[in-house]
């Protein structure tokens, strides 16, 4: 396990080498395995931290659901990025695309892990559900942004610089990031709860209804004292 974590250091400290190796197709499968194991572990830990606010069952449930959320989003959205890149002249393989996205996912997972002590601190010192929910939305936004920065950098290095369609491929990546965030947030809403409202008994999945964005706005409204979330 520790051996697999070595990939984190390479990504964080020697990212140019890492992206060049992806571009050259060096050890792709080993890299993917290491990134998958690392990110699944970190997501599971962070999920357990989030779910601990509610119950042990919720902690276990979130520890499974959070890795599923990220990996499922990856599988849903990766083909779109790959085929649009091919359409605009990329010669990357699907595996190279997945490796790049997994790099972003792994960075997100590491950042989330680094935020876990802060989340635990607020878990122990506050009981306001809406605040805790928004705190986590903020943490996910920061971690996701860092991952996306890595993806953009990686794409720039891995794709053929100067070849035809490079400008279009950059736009593809930018638009794809919105798609990724949109699919991810909708999937997160579908398989919620991750934190679990204190006044509601444990439930593996909650009934569908509403959407992620209106809920976040409502939570902000409640924290500011405008209304109570129904």
């Amino acid at each position, binding site marked *: *396990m*520790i*051996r697999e*974590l*070595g990939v*984190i*250091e390479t990504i*964080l*400290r*020697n990212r*140019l*080498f890492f992206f*060049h190796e992806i571009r050259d197709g060096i050890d792709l499968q080993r890299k993917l395995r290491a990134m998958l194991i690392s990110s699944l*572990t*970190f997501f599971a*830990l962070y999920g*357990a*931290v989030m779910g*601990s*606010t*509610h*119950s*042990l069952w919720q*902690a276990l449930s979130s520890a499974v659901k959070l890795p599923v959320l990220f990996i499922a989003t990856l599988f849903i959205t990766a083909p779109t990025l790959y085929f649009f890149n091919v359409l605009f002249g990329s010669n990357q393989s699907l595996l190279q695309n997945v490796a790049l996205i997994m790099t972003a996912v792994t960075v997100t997972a*590491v950042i989330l*892990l*680094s935020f*876990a*002590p802060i989340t*635990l601190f607020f*878990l*122990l*010192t*506050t*009981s*306001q*559900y809406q605040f805790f929910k928004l705190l986590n939305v903020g943490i996910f936004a920061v971690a996701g942004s860092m991952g996306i920065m890595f993806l953009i950098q990686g794409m720039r290095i891995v794709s053929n*610089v*100067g070849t035809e369609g490079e400008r279009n491929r950059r736009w593809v990546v930018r638009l794809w990031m919105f798609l990724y965030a949109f699919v991810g947030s909708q999937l997160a809403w579908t398989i919620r709860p991750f934190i679990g*409202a*204190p*006044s*509601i*008994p444990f439930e593996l999945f909650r009934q569908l209804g509403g959407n992620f964005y209106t809920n976040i706005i409502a939570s902000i409204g409640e924290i500011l004292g405008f209304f*109570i*979330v*129904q």
Partner: protein
Amino acid sequence: MKQNDPSKIDQLLDLLLDALQERQAARGRPFAAIETPPEPENPVTEAPPTIPAEPEAAQNETLEAVLAEPELPEKLPSIQLDRMIGRLALVILALIVLVNIPYNRYGTNLARAMPDAQALVIRDGLVLKGSGEEIYVLENNHKRWISSLDAFTYYGYRWEQVNLVDDDFLAQFPSGPALSILYKCPTSPHVFAIENGVKRWIKDIPTFVEQGYVWDDVQIVSCAAIERLPSGLPIPPDAGEPPSP
């Protein structure tokens, strides 16, 4: 580089190619871009050309490749980040276990030790109790009084679901119909709601539905058992004289 009369561009290209070859050789992998182009099928035998064998297009591609390749910085030495992350993960795992261990016989643990009064999420099915004895359940923004302990258990509520709230908080919700046990005797069409040990006749089906009941909630009991219960006001109160069960 062994040309008799090379042009300046050729010299520049050769220099760049040499540098590139050295770098690729240092990386330990072959350099595909400078492979000698295949021999033409019908080579010209007389007077071999004095210029390099590479075609001009290939030279341009190579130049582009050389110019596009940014120089990689020195690889940074390891700071044992993997071990540090591994330890952080173990510490967080230990903390997760720690905050989930109950520390008293009621199952309270550190993660949920804080009072949760602020954390109430208003929703259907939320069970509330003010300073009085009455317990209410929220439904469609109305509070419904649970009229008996039997009704409380029959509808599947548990004591740990009851949230103690201020009376002011309860007062913001208008009252809805009470939530009661429903009795019906096998030989009679009449349904009675049992509230605090008193039977109340429900006038008709529209009233029954209006009260939020469903037929699955009606329990069939003996007529004698219903007759033994004291009669209260019918539902609605102006429904007239209650019939015999």
